[in-house]
């Protein structure tokens, strides 16, 4: 009945893209592989050690989520809160209960064990701001006990405007809001209800309130200089066409980064979408949408859709090592030294990597035409090609062109056991991109190519499907059989850059490739 009502806040602050909100050049790539040159110094200082806000940092730094916020105040069609929500980093509410005190202790324990730790976030398992007491108490304790750790939180935004002051007071300098729509007509297809002002709202009214509160909260945060990342779940046929509008709306309110994530949907999850057969996008469809939004804003392409209790570098989860029982029994002390040392090490590595990349780029300059090639890389972190092909549970995808090497996403491989065993899930095998991590690390290794366990053919099929649009795969080591099979699939195997830096190696390879291709092309 109502026309499109949403844009009530119109503070078209300045013409910058989200990235340069503080006066940077407004160039588009800070969420991808940008270095300090693209960002104002104060923004760079905030993001350089944050694995989610800087693609560069995600090679080096680890995050952890503490699941202190079980309650939620909205219902999403992609979430069944009894079970782990694959989309919004929500382990099922019953998975683990953590009090603020235990959470702070867990942070100290993880920090002592993992010097890469730079950020602690609260992302659920419900909504951080539907549990404001627990969330802010936890932040308070962490700030007191481990002041060198940065804080961030994720929210659906419904209660955000009420808590912006508290967020600013606690120096939380990163906030993620999940915004899937700005139009209630789209919203009512995603959110069956919300709980707001002591009342349950349904349908379009619910979506309208939620949308307005999200936009208001976003504008309030950015006005205070707090960096905001917007997550959007791409739901084909529901909001995929609409996300460009969302992108525009959040950019104009100063969001720093837009993270478009694929819907993860499986009947075994018991979600509305899972049960009604709503599909997620393919990796290629996702990339297309990300590409089309990119010109206008920084896009995050390295999000792993982590669980609300994830621990470790992006792409790994060491949560199982830090279960509640183990933490409770531990004796932990605060010692920032190793983390400081690690940060200094990363600084050195970074300038080294930048120099290597710059010199390769200089050598490349002008040689490449308009050609763009995708390649896949196996890495354990640190920005190096340092993982054995058979151990890879995901591939990092880079796009090579005359402009250099750009990180464009990651693709997971190895079918998690639960998909294999879940009754009824057999009919529609999950796409490689739709898998998330159920398994402990050693278990997961068994799932990968040439590691035994399952039929190798299956896994290799998975791998080739995941990276079929890549010209080459860069790895530190690879067995004879997969090497042959990949060659058959038309994917070149490159292991000559083992343990070298990723970006400079890729550019060097690309340069050699264009050099050898050009004479051939001109002869033809």
């Amino acid at each position, binding site marked *: 009945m109502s026309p499109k009502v949403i844009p009530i806040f119109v503070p078209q602050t300045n013409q910058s893209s989200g990235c340069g909100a503080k006066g940077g050049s407004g160039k588009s790539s800070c969420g991808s592989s940008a270095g300090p040159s693209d960002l104002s110094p104060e923004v760079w200082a905030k993001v350089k050690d944050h694995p989610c806000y800087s693609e560069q940092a995600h090679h080096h730094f680890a995050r952890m989520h503490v699941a202190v916020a079980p309650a939620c105040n909205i219902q999403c069609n992609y979430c069944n809160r009894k079970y782990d929500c694959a989309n919004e980093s929500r382990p099922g509410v019953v998975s683990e209960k953590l009090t603020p005190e235990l959470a702070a202790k867990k942070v100290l324990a993880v920090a002592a064990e993992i010097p890469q730790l730079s950020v602690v976030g609260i992302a659920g398992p419900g909504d951080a701001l539907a549990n404001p007491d627990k969330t802010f108490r936890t932040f308070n304790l962490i700030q007191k006990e481990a002041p060198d750790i940065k804080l961030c939180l994720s929210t659906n935004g419904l209660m955000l405007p009420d808590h912006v002051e508290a967020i600013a007071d606690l120096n939380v300098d990163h906030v993620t809001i999940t915004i899937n729509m700005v139009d209630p007509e789209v919203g009512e297809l995603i959110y069956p209800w919300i709980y707001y002002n*002591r009342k349950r709202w349904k349908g379009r009214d619910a979506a309208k309130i939620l949308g307005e509160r999200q936009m208001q909260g976003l504008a309030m945060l950015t006005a205070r200089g707090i960096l905001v990342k917007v997550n959007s779940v791409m739901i084909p046929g529901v909001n995929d066409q609409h996300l460009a509008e969302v992108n525009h709306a959040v950019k104009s309110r100063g969001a720093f980064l837009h993270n478009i994530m694929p819907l993860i949907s499986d009947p075994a999850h018991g979600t509305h979408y899972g049960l009604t057969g709503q599909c997620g996008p393919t990796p290629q469809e996702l990339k297309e949408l990300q590409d089309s939004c990119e010109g206008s804003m920084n896009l995050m392409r390295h999000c792993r859709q982590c669980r609300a209790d994830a621990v470790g570098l992006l792409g790994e989860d060491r949560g199982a090592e830090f279960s509640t029982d183990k933490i409770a029994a531990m004796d932990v002390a605060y010692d920032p030294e190793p983390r400081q040392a690690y940060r200094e090490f990363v600084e050195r590595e970074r300038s080294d990597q930048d120099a290597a990349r710059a010199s390769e780029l200089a050598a490349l300059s002008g040689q490449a035409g308009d050609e763009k090639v995708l390649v896949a890389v196996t890495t354990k972190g640190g920005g190096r090609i340092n993982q054995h092909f058979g151990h890879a549970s995901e591939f990092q995808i880079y796009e090579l062109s005359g402009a250099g090497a750009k990180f464009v996403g990651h693709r997971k491989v190895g079918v998690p056991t639960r998909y294999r065993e879940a009754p009824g899930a057999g009919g529609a095998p999950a796409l490689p991109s739709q898998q998330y991590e159920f398994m402990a690390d050693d278990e997961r290794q068994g799932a990968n190519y040439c590691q035994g366990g399952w039929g190798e053919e299956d896994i290799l099929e998975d791998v080739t499907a995941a990276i079929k649009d890549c010209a080459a795969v860069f790895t530190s080591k690879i067995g004879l059989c997969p090497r042959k099979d990949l060659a058959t699939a038309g994917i070149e195997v490159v292991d000559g850059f083992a343990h070298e830096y990723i970006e400079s190696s890729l550019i060097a390879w690309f340069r050699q490739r264009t050099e050898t291709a050009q004479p051939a092309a001109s002869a033809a």
Partner: protein
Amino acid sequence: MPYKIISSTCTACTACEPVCPNVAIKEKNGTYIIDPKKCTECEGEDPQCVEVCPVEGCVVVDKSLPRYAAA
């Protein structure tokens, strides 16, 4: 008839506890329960626990007890 929580479907998400205006809800052995002596059925507004609970049919009227208004 105050409200009660069907414990077999309760996910212990904690959402209902803070929204009850009469502090009638608390945790017990991993699930949540309503104290029938404290529950006023939220007279005058929608029952808050029902409004916020994410599980359909988890919070219901307890027909074994008399209505609050009559009690």
